[in-house]
């Protein structure tokens, strides 16, 4: 099962290496990872998606907590939360099929952000299922390149993931 972990870390040199190194050393797999600043200066938030059983994820959380620079680890999959990812897709586009592509993009509430004589770049935000669905539809036109940010997530409602 996939688990999405919110990891609050001190913004210190090497902290990403420590977290990534821990996963490889203990044989855990990171599906994806996104890092960015929080509203508190000096504290960053990592969103890490891990695939594994309850026991494995429990070990991941405990081992992460042992890292001195890690302040808090929460498993967002255990509570109601919203998850989003951003994907940019460069797809083959000629004059003849541009409107077909436009239609797909509109259905998925995406945006065309660049057009050239033989290609377009599409921006799409959503959850994993939506990403896979649009990829499937656009494959028909020929996808040239894809880039994804990795998942980010927040708890629903007024609850927050606090530092301490």
């Amino acid at each position, binding site marked *: 099962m996939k688990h999405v972990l919110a990891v609050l*870390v*001190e913004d210190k*040199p*090497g902290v990403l*290496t*420590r977290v990534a*190194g*821990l996963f490889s*050393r203990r044989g855990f797999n990171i599906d994806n990872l996104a890092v960015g600043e929080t509203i508190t200066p000096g504290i960053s938030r990592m969103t890490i998606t891990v695939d594994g059983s309850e*026991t494995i994820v*429990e*070990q991941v959380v*405990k*081992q992460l*907590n*042992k*890292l*001195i*620079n*890690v*302040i*808090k680890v929460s498993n967002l999959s255990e509570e109601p939360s919203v998850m989003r990812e951003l994907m940019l897709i460069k797809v083959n586009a000629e004059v003849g099929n541009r409107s077909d592509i436009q239609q797909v993009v509109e259905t998925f509430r995406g945006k065309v952000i660049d057009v050239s004589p033989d290609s377009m770049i599409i921006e799409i935000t959503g959850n994993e299922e939506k990403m896979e669905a649009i990829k499937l539809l656009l494959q028909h036109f020929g996808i040239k390149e894809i880039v994804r940010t990795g998942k980010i997530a927040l708890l629903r409602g007024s609850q927050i993931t606090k*530092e*301490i």
Partner: protein
Amino acid sequence: MKKKMTKGSAIILYALKEEGVEIVFGYPGGAVLPLYDRLFDSSIKHLLVRHEQAAVHAADGYARVTGRPGVVFATSGPGATNLVTGITNAFMDSVPLVLITGQVPSAFIGTDAFQEADITGITMPVTKHSYLVKNAEQLSGILAEAFYIASTGRRGPVLVDVPKDVFDQEAPYFYNIKCEIPGYNPTYNGHLGQISRAVKAIRDAKRPVIFGGGGLIRSAASGVLREFAEKARIPVILSLMGLGAYPGDRDLFLGMPGMHGSITANYALSEADLIIGTGVRFDDRVTGKLESFANNAKIIHIDIDPAEIGKNVKIDIPIVGDVRIVLEALLQKLKPGHTNDWLTQIENWQKQNPMSGGLKSSGRAIKPQFVIRELSRLSEEKTIVATDVGQHQMWTAQHFIIREPCAFLTSGGLGTMGYGFPAAIGAKLAAPESRVICITGDGSFQMNIQELATAVNNRLDMIIAVINNGFLGMVRQWQDMFYDKRYSHTALEGNPDFVLLAEAYGARGLRAKDEKEATEAIKQAMSEKGPVVIDFVVEPEENVYPMVAPNCPINDIIIGGDQS
């Protein structure tokens, strides 16, 4: 308040003073020249080793005996990389160390400069934490954190890498021993609800055992453990790392469990209905085949490291906390135990299966177990034993009676050959009044034999007992048992004459070829000053028994040699 400006090198030495550091273990080099220059005028002692690895092991031995962090200095590049085995060893056995390495000057970092190595990167997986200091202003704060992290919670090594120019930079010195680190708050007091559940489980148990480890020693829990065990009448089993936490000669002590553990300890763990794990990590050498480990038992696990709980075996009652504090809390609620039937059963096992390997002399070479038993018999109460790794280590664990905590130093987790001798040096410096014996093998000794110079130069009274079988004995034993006796490269042909070698270094060298000579050599060594090497020429192909083959249930025991 106006703060005086101080050089980085001086800040480090002030900080060490503040932390009560009396001795540093190290080896100088280019990148630490400014630090060593400052050390020249300092009242802090320095032990000059002959290889940086030995500096870490010596600091490790010192830390295990005193309970305070051992401090190491080494230079950049090879100086730092030579520390890695020692750091990993300390990490696996939860030993507090603060390692200060020199680094190439800040401006050269990342350029593959002469003697540059990314030591914080290299040691990231084997340190509790590490720092690369950017400027002298950071030094005071970082050192306070380093000592705090190393010596609290689950102990471990912390590395501080200091670029050469930072030693010469000036910054205000302020030292605040109390530091707050947002992501680091070890739990010391056990959860009250879990403690109540544990008390009930102990009260209901018919066949309880205490299984204790190195955590008992690190948290100074042996006193409360003894009260606890004797009030509740619960037998005690100690892992290799835990030996000494309960006196090895008391009735309730069943020995070490696992691969080369006592038969009684393994039977007791297998038949128990309650295992009270205290400061242990249920290592594979102890549990054997996990699926069949302690199938009949409920398990209480007390440990300061939450990640150890449930890592290897399923736990019924987890208690995160300091073992001593939790045992004290349990003791208060404990009723005297009624475990007579269980203790009778255990006594029967003990009578049927004494640890008797090597009792029958072959009449030819000395049995190695005999040497260990003689060393144990002739030693005073206050004796510290350090071992290397291999057969002699297991024989020492089986046959040397360890009576006190911090008196048995061994490389448990990493299994580092070459650990014992430098650790014994560190131990002697930590406890000059205690007798120190290093029990080693002809293979292990040669992995840090150069430290004879250190021991001689510092006139350290110690015995180095070389159990010399001319083999890499434990590996040979596995080749014997599992690889059709194909002794691929385990015969150590070309070994030096250890007596002559000792004398070449200026140490005393003795040799024993039969039992009588062995006893005499031990007695003589005990009356000598300075380091004495005794070369015990022992039966070359003696195996360690009892033995549980890897990944077998621990009650499936191979009994061999003269025990069968």
